[in-house]
């Protein structure tokens, strides 16, 4: 295996980590706003609807983290397979977590 085949590009690694973190943030925020209505009211006031605010917050977080990680190169030191597993795990936990949250509560 060549060195090239074992690494992700800087942008791919940085925004991959940003996507994983944003995915977890999205699920966490959905659960917290569902349980804590003052937060829902605040999010309703920001963009007219809490779901709109959440979508915009997700996009801003994803772009902000991606650009930050791209500059620091910190994420590139993580082994690609670990990053891929982290992203996949974050997506599965987020999806199952959302369904479980609304099913139970």
């Amino acid at each position: 295996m060549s060195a090239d085949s074992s690494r992700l590009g800087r942008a791919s690694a940085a925004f991959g980590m940003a996507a994983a973190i944003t995915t977890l943030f999205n699920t966490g925020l959905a659960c917290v706003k569902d349980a804590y209505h003052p937060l829902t009211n605040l999010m309703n006031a920001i963009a007219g609807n809490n779901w709109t605010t959440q979508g915009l917050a997700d996009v801003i977080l994803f772009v902000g983290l991606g650009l930050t990680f791209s500059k620091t190169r910190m994420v590139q030191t993580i082994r690609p397979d670990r990053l891929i597993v982290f992203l996949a795990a974050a997506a599965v936990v987020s999806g199952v977590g959302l369904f479980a949250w609304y099913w139970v509560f």
Partner: protein
Amino acid sequence: MNVTANDAILLAHATFGVLGTVSALWVFVETLNARDQNLQRIRTAALAVAIFMIAAWILGGYWYLHFYPVERAMILQGPWPFAHNVFMETKEHLFLMTLILSFYLPIAARDKLASSAAARRMVLCVAALIALSGLAIEGSGAVIDHGVKVALLRPSGAEIRK
């Protein structure tokens, strides 16, 4: 034929969601055979995923804010309240995850797919997640739609229709 803005926006939302999901599958299959000759096609398909999902987001968001409250009231009065309480709540938040992954896919597809196995695995993973979550979201849409239908068809549905 009487197709309202409500109908057109809802159907366009679902259509763009399906197109985004199918495009993610296209990216997945192309990436399995990634080489220099099909790199541009992979990147174009990845960009198509993002564009289709953004269209689904805007149209779905508009419909959700302007037309869904009436249907939500019907569902909650009907025999399938979980169509909203579980499936719509999950769908509307799960979609945001799919959207973020769709934004990321064109970035991952810009990597050196022909020479980097890690880059290919990342694109395969993200495309698969988008396709699978897209299918789950489409299925949830069907449950929500049926939630409205059973509310209108039940014996007391006439009261809701008023």
